[in-house]
């Protein structure tokens, strides 16, 4: 099971530039999602808007939860009416020749729950996957 998703990417650009691309609504509209009213301040509620589809209500409601320039930003992220609210976290680290971005997208459970839930779950998924294939 994965209530948690972790991705990492290193960009050959200085950390300030990457931070700006994460916190400028015009930049977000280019690389992330169109139509947002993001503002870089804690407590800011904003939304990304798109065309509704059968499996997507057409907007993602977000809130800035943490803002620590230029290294960390956390958003709440709710993309459906019935789904669980989730959290998206961006972490930036200056590395040789650029900036490493660590992105996590996790279910809205306390961290200890997520840790407990995720430990060993990959193996269980495999076991269950084999089980499903057999039935």
């Amino acid at each position, binding site marked *: 099971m994965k209530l948690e998703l972790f991705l990492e*990417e290193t960009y050959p650009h200085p950390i300030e530039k990457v931070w700006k691309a994460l916190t400028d609504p015009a930049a977000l509209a280019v690389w992330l999602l169109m139509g947002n009213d993001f503002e870089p301040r804690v407590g800011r509620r904003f939304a990304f808007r798109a065309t509704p589809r059968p499996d997507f209500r057409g907007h993602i409601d977000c809130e800035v939860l943490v803002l620590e320039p230029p290294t960390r930003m956390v958003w709440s992220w709710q993309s*459906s009416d019935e789904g669980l609210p989730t959290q998206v976290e961006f972490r930036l680290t200056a590395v040789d020749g650029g900036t490493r971005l660590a992105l996590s997208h996790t279910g809205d459970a306390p961290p200890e729950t997520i840790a407990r839930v995720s430990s060993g779950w990959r193996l*269980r998924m495999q076991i269950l996957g084999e089980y499903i294939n057999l039935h």
Partner: protein
Amino acid sequence: MLKAATPDVFHAIADPNRRRLLDLLAEGESPAQQLAGRFTISFAAVSQHLKVLREAGLVASRPAGRRRVYRLTAAPLRTVDQWTSRYQRFWQDRLQRLGNYLDETK
């Protein structure tokens, strides 16, 4: 775009006792009493956990005499995996776009 799995499934697998029940049932079907024997919590508590799993569609039961035999019906867990893999594709694509954006911006 991204539709999350039903909260029921997430809720159901968030509890360690219920995950253990799923693990036990992955070994094969089993009467509730026998499952309860593997836990230190009460039979009533195990029954309650089985009820939550059943409502989430993760286990099914059939009567066998006076007992109920439970089995794993793990297909809903695929929704959880789907949820993640959809977000994974989404974010991988977006991080690449961010790279392109950075390359093209002063």
